């Protein structure tokens, strides 16, 4: 049975009820980091099929920007496995470029890249690609699909209030810290009243800000699920910004058939490009 939930992102974003529903009490006051992150993940669990049309806007420090059109297909299975396909449509010269990620039930990931201009074969991407930037943006794959809870050690920090809004703060540490230090890799700021991660800072070994990922324009997509229609990543070093704006979002199996997550489908729809020069 296909569950279809089509939401025009901007229409929802501009409606009066864009604010996630408040939680009346604070049951997480004494929770530890892992518990809190599990709750966050549970609250944000998505529909198993998601199709999104995105505008990827890259802005340099001078304010000059470029826009790419991208489609994102996600499939989440009950056993924890899933697929992700990020497919470029525009500009035309990059049409068909795809990032295809598979996660098995054990949490192992495999990422492949398809470049029509390179040939019919998909190129396997390394495991470190999950934290690496995605295709020239400031986002990593993890930023797009969410981090694996078993990939980090989560440690709770003191709550913070920023602009009259209360946040739980949780640091994500590497599972295998170095011999003499254990700096956090990320710092999540979680809205107390909705358990939504509203901001994630990527930190360096000295705890200084490298990148800041913020989520905006939340859309209520059903139940307790609120999803952002605008993601922004600001690189504190280069002062570049990357924006992902959701133009259209559909939760429907019809939009996310299994075959899209295959090399065959990619090659059929975006055949290798003959050399034009």
């Amino acid at each position, binding site marked *: 049975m296909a569950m279809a939930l089509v939401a025009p992102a901007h229409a929802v974003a501009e409606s009066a009820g864009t604010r996630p529903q408040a939680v009346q009490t604070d049951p997480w006051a004494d929770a530890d980091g892992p518990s809190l992150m599990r709750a966050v993940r549970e609250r944000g669990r998505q529909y198993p099929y998601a199709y999104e049309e995105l505008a990827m806007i*890259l802005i*340099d420090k*001078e304010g*000059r920007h*470029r826009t790419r059109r991208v489609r994102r297909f996600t499939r989440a299975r009950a056993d924890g496995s899933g697929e992700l396909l990020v497919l*470029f449509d525009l*500009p035309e*010269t*990059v049409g068909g*470029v795809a990032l295809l990620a598979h996660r098995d039930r054990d949490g192992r990931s495999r990422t492949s*890249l398809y*470049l*029509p*201009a*390179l040939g019919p074969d998909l*190129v*396997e*991407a*390394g*495991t*470190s*690609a999950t*934290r*690496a*930037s*995605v*295709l*020239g943006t*400031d986002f990593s794959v993890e930023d797009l699909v969410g981090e694996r809870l078993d990939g980090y050690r989560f440690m709770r920090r003191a709550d913070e209030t920023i602009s009259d809004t209360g946040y739980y703060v949780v640091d994500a540490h590497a599972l*295998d*810290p*170095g*011999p003499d*230090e254990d700096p956090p890799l990320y710092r999540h700021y979680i809205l107390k009243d909705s358990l939504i991660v509203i901001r994630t800072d990527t930190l*360096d*070994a*000295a705890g*200084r800000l*490298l990148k800041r990922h913020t989520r905006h324009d939340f859309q209520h997509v059903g139940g307790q699920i609120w999803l952002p229609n605008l993601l922004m990543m600001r*690189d504190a*070093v*280069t002062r*570049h910004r990357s924006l992902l704006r959701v133009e259209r979002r559909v939760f429907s199996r019809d939009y996310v058939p299994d075959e899209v997550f295959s090399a065959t489908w990619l090659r059929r729809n975006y055949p290798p*490009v003959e*050399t*034009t*020069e």
Partner: protein
Amino acid sequence: MTRLFLLGVDRPRVIALVLFTLTVLLGSGLGRLRLDTSFDSLIPAHDPSRQIYQQVTREFGSDNKTIIYVAEPELWTAARLRQLDMLQRDLGQLQFVERIDSLFSLRTVQDDAGRIGERSISDRIPRTDAEARILREQILSNPLYVGNFLSRTGEATAIIVSVVNPDQAVAEDEFNQTVFSNIETLLARYENQFQRVFQVGSPRIDAEIRGSLSRDFVRLGPLAALALLSAVFLFLRSALAAALPLATSFITLIWTFGLLGWLNVPLNVLSAMIPALVIVIGSTEDTHIMAAFAKAAAGDARAPARAIIGKAARQLGVPVALTVLTTTLGFATNLASDIGLIRDFAVAATIAMLSNGVVTVLLAPMLLARFGQATTTRSASAGLARFPAWLVQRFAVLQDRHPAATILLTVALCGVLALQAARLHITNDPFSYFPADGKLLTDTQIVHEDLAGVRVFFVNLQARPDAFREPANIARLAQIQAFIANQHAFDLSLSLADQLAFINRVFRGDKPDAALLPDSRELISQYLLFFHRSELEPYVSHDFSQANIVVRHNISDSRQLSAYIQALENAVSRIAGPDMRTALVGESLMLNRAADSLMAGQLQALALILGLIFVIMSVMFTDLRGGALALIPASIPIIVMFGVMGLLDIALNPATAMLGVIAIGIAVDGTVHLLSRYNDLCRRTSDDQAAVRQAVTEQATPLVVSGLALSLGFGVLMLSEFAIIAQFGALAAAIMLVSIFANLLITPIIMVRWRLVGLHQIVGMQVDPRVFEHSPLLLGMSGYQRRKAILISELHEFDAGDVLIQQGEFKRSMYMLLEGEVEVIQTENGEESHLARLGPGEIFGEVGYLHAARRTAMVRALEHVAVLRFDHDKMQSDLRHFPRIAAKLHDNISMVLKDRTGSNIPHQAASA
């Protein structure tokens, strides 16, 4: 000039007050003085490439970067890499740091296992030494790292820091200093972590220039003063002779630097020379004044100070004014330089030389009047004081016995050295300021050897938007880089083509031989998805209409760099084709181009100063030969200087390039004094040889003392922390010694053959002009004809009772009385008959002049008289090219004779 000299004697309080007030007023500008150590001052203001350079750096980022060099044999351990990461992050946090490029920031499309994985080392610092070693191998196989960020041995790395001063957050002239201090403080924390860590770049150069400049200011001035004092005291044995230059220099320096403060003219590297220059150059006039005063005092020790100073002033006034003028002109010729560094120095030096002239003329007579007579009696005694006379005697042997051989030998030597001068090379590289074995250049050399030179320029190509997504254009970039590599001149070049070749290699299985360029527009666009915009910023513009090839090098020789750049420009233009605009831009190239401007400017300045000296001296002696004569001793040191520079491989740089004009301005001073004295003596004797001998003898002491003092003073500059100032000092010292040789050996050989008469001597006679206008000898002559006729005569002065013409003698001279009265007396049978009494304007002896006959009467001075003597043979010789003047003179003499035939007495006077 005499009146001006006597001002300090006649009105000492007024002059002291004027000097004090001016010193206080101008000195109040000292607090406003500022330093300019920027490279901008080395680049011509109107360099057309400046605008293109600014456009390119706006788009691609500045080429003005600081390189943090880190060397550590154990670099590739987890611990060291973490420290390195911390260092580069700490650098990124410093104020004004805009961008950090390093091993850690560079992204690659290769992951730990060699698969596709866009990442930077920062994404995952190795946690174990084993991981670090794997990373080392990966990075060493990446051409974007090797030579750029990592040495081929993997033991040295560079962190490249770009800094900006947004909205002039700190004053521009303090910016580099602030950046340098910030970085240096940070690096101090990491000194123990790595074997070697240092910074090289504009901020360090700026800071080192400032430090060296301050130390030079504090050290060179006093040392020059000490050298000067020693020289003057040893030769002149006079405390005042030593103290006078110090007093004038001290006041001059306050005036100069105070005025520079008020005029907002900054001090720069070359300004470090000013105190020493003022002390040594200023001392030459003081030395001449002291020598003239001593000579005048020796003539009449009991005469009042005012009379002695007046006598010295009459002899020295015009030469001092001339030498101040020529020295000032030597510096002033650079006022029009397009290079700020030289122009600002020229302003400072011109003000200094003029101020020194004014202060000397006002202060020296005042001090001499007060202390002079007590301190000038012990000169010309034993020991070193006899050295000038000894030197003159040795030279006299050559002048008398082997004049032709001496001249020929000098010409031959100059010829050989002129050939050596052809090997001269030019540099305008700021690194050339510093000694080759100094820390900065040593560090720069280390960076060059381990990584790539710190000098950067861009090859910029401009076309339509998206042009550099086309394979053909990417291939053009690669072709240009291949040309650069084949030149074997530059250390490294990087462009978008390197990035694309590398990603192509990785996507095609990471085989080095697969490092070919992508061959389709689509593939290029698809590869470009894997680059972060910040990685491409230095190489391609936002809209892909412009591409930049970043070239690093270590060439400081301007001629060499120009040749390579010219070849590269041609190649770039050919490879890019007609549809693209190309430009080679960068601060290092503008500095290099400025070297050409520097050379052209100096040649112009040299021609200008030589021309000015020629004109001034020609006018002064109303004879072109006067100008030519002055140029000979001035030119010899210059030829020697350029020859020695070629021989010793000393580059023409902003300091040494100016040396030519400055040295001429100074060296000609001695010539002016020598020629002036010689001509003064010529007016009193027909024996030119004797006049030359006497002039050389009299001028030897001031010439040798000032030459040696200048040489010592300039020699002090060799202790400067700036290589270019040290070179300037050494060469200037040598020039001053050569100028002694030129003035005392060569000039006299030529002088004796060219008798010149100075206009100033006539002007300075203080004779009523009506005497000339109404004199029967000069009637009907134009001003020029009258002056020329007078200049060919000799000026003689006689005291009351002196006999001008002896009855019965056989001489062919005619006299014109300028001052005083003479009487004409005929003696017959032992009885004197008074025939006539003659006054100013009247002539006598014209019969003897026209016809060889014995004098029939005696002419005796009734009081102090001044006369012009016209010798028949000399007039015939000197006026052979002026037949009209000769004819007119003879007409006038005939008229005088005709008039006198009506009167017995004048006739006797005429034939006296």
